[in-house]
């Protein structure tokens, strides 16, 4: 990272590793003498203890100490990078935005939604409703409602157009009509005083929907990806 908080994308040169220049003889000698001390201690513990009592070889102390360090390091190395400590969490809150694929927020889908589809979206019925957590100070400053939706070609082919309306706290929001298939965002401002409390129910309605048929037994309105409420 540069001193100004932006990474300098310097080209990185290739690095070729060089082998150690340590002389083979020395390395082998080292392995013979000190390199296998731990295993020697493990193998010959009784011998070492006898040596200690007899006042002979007393090199067992470094051996033991070395083994202890190796074991401790191994134990330390096996552990997780950062130990996790418990936290005191508050009760789960309503989400301000619900993504249709988010199963944890499915409880906020009050009615009119079909099962979650693989791509993280849901078909609705003609009428559908969600509960959202309004922004703080929404009562004083109002909020903005956003519904990300798709109008399928099959619906347009059969119904020609779809008009979506929404109601929040008994207040109707301006409708929007879709005459072409595609992705849309239904975005409406909610005036101050409309929302109170920590939960806001939003009721959506379409002027019509595809009725249940032989191909699909469900009533099909529009496809919704997400619904949310944010500060204005």
């Amino acid at each position: 990272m540069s001193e100004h908080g932006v990474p300098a994308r310097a080209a990185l040169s290739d690095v070729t590793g060089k082998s150690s220049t340590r002389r083979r003889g020395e390395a082998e000698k080292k392995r013979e003498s000190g390199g296998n001390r731990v295993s020697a201690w493990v193998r010959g513990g009784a011998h070492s203890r006898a040596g200690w009592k007899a006042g002979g070889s007393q090199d067992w102390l470094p051996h033991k100490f070395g083994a202890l360090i190796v074991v401790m390091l191994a134990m330390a190395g096996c552990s997780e990078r950062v130990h996790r400590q418990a936290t005191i969490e508050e009760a789960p809150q309503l989400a301000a935005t619900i993504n249709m694929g988010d199963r944890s927020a499915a409880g906020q889908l009050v009615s009119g939604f079909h099962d979650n589809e693989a791509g993280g979206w849901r078909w609705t019925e003609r009428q559908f409703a969600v509960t959202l957590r309004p922004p703080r100070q929404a009562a004083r400053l109002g909020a903005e409602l956003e519904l990300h939706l798709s109008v399928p070609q099959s619906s347009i082919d059969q119904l020609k157009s779809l008009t979506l309306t929404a109601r929040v706290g008994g207040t109707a929001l301006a409708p929007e009509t879709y005459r072409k298939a595609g992705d849309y965002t239904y975005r409406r401002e909610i005036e101050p005083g409309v929302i109170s409390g920590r939960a806001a129910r939003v009721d959506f309605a379409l002027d019509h929907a595809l009725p249940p048929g032989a191909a699909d037994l469900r009533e099909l309105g529009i496809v919704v990806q997400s619904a949310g409420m944010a500060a204005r």
Partner: protein
Amino acid sequence: MKHRDKLAVMVLGIFCLLVHWRGFTAWFRADDFAWMGLTLSVHHFADVVKALFRPLAEGTIRPWSERAFFMGGYALFGLNPLPFRLVIFGTEFANLALVNSIGDRITGVKGAGFVAAIFWTLNNSSATALGWASAYNQVMCAFFVLLAFHFLLRYIETGQARYNVYQWLAFVAGFGAMELNVVYPALAAVYTLLCARKFFRRTLPLAGVSVVYFVVDRALARPDHNSEYSLHFTGAMLRTLAKYWAWTVGPQYFWTPVHAPNWLVIAAVALVSLGLVAFAARRRAGWFAIAWFAIAIAPVLPLRDHITDYYAFLPAVGLCWLGGWAVAQAFRTRSRALYSTLALAAIYLLIMAPRTLAASDWNYRLTMRARNLVEGLATVGDIHHGKTVLLDGVDTALFWNAVADRSYRLAGIDHLYVTEESRDSIQADPDLGDINEFVLPPEMASAALDQDQLVVYDVRGPLLRNITSAYADRALEPRLPAMLEVANPLAAPLLGREWYAADGNHRWMPKRATLRMAGPNAAGQKIYLRGYCPDDQLSAGPLAVAVTVDGVALGESSIGKGQNSFELAFTLPAQAYGEPEMQVQVEVARTFHTAADQRELGLAFGVFEVK
């Protein structure tokens, strides 16, 4: 090593562990996190080299004792303190063995080194050196200096050239531990001058290495111009020397657990000092022991405003040898001085040990607070992945020991702030950092809460408590920030729609981009633009950058070749003063794109700041 020596070293090691058990079981704090955090910037071999040898922290280059120690330790063991402690205490056990061995050799009295090692273990300077991992440079530097001196003594004793070679190797390696190593040639020269005159000339070439190191280090190092580290070559150096002497012979700040009056502690320090000087006066090696203290403390004497207990870690060895010699000599000769010597030793232990234990405990408690926070944040990162964390209830000690050095990055948290209420309770320390960098402006906090991008935790208890809802219910006074990190996701609502998505720690703009931030709170303030301009953009010549604020043009600046990391400053208009919000527009003369990135790219920005 003889059986007796082995036993002595084992006893010293156990004694050291007993005295510094709180140090051995301590966690991490403060700079430790910054050093370990270097690992996060390493992706290629070139990054490793840069991280190991780039001057950092007042321009210091300590590849073994700081960079390799922390980066290697963190890469292998994460935030597990045990491997770090094993290395620190393993090095210290070696130091104790060397102090023991050298003490016996230079005094010619068996047991002098052992008693010196006991005195050294109890010295105040060892509490921080052994308890705070970032002070490992002291322990490692002491190791190389003592090792080099040990080989010098062996060279003098045997005349074998290989010991001279070993001395050189230990001495040169010591520069990787700490720059204090430059004093070694002076230690070797003074010793040989006083006690082995025949070898004096052979120590002089060592000074050449120190001179070369000093010149190269000064040329490469870029000090941070931190006022606390300013050098004062004045009479203050004598006062600093007196302070270090007093705090080596007695407790730092003359602290005692029973709140003994200062005059009493000063009297005790004076008694012990007189005893040491009187003992040294008639002995050449005694003068060397005092010279060891003076020479090893000399490099930090100009640091008038940065007097730190662990700076006396290596110098204290000299006085400990002297004390150990006096005690061992008194026992050996059974002279009349035995009782007075024992009385002085008892005074030293009595006034020193409580402060050492208390300092070790103080450090331990701080590290435990840091552990509670960082390990709690690791859980927060798991539960609220990707969200920004706001901490409430952070006090001065917790902030400077567990937040300021960005410990949270090691716990998987990218963005962490403290509440404004916390900021007001944290004592500012400009030499350590700027608290305001960690304060989330209310407007950004409010927007982030609404978008579920922020979680708030109370850190007052041993466990982090999620208080997001309660915090959200507080009436936050909307106020725009005076500093905006444009890559921060929480800053997005303040940016115009023309900005591209954040890319790591920066964000690209096209030809023109806008943002909102607070106006200046004092006349004459400027707006600073910091960012990055690649060579591709500069290949057509200098790039003109124009800034307007609320429609008023602030003039034009340009970025020339070689100024890839840039900082531009524009004086703000008088009418912007005191405004809660100003609209800033930046426009560059041209854009570019690359084969890999077909976007129209103007400049990459990191920070906009009004100050």
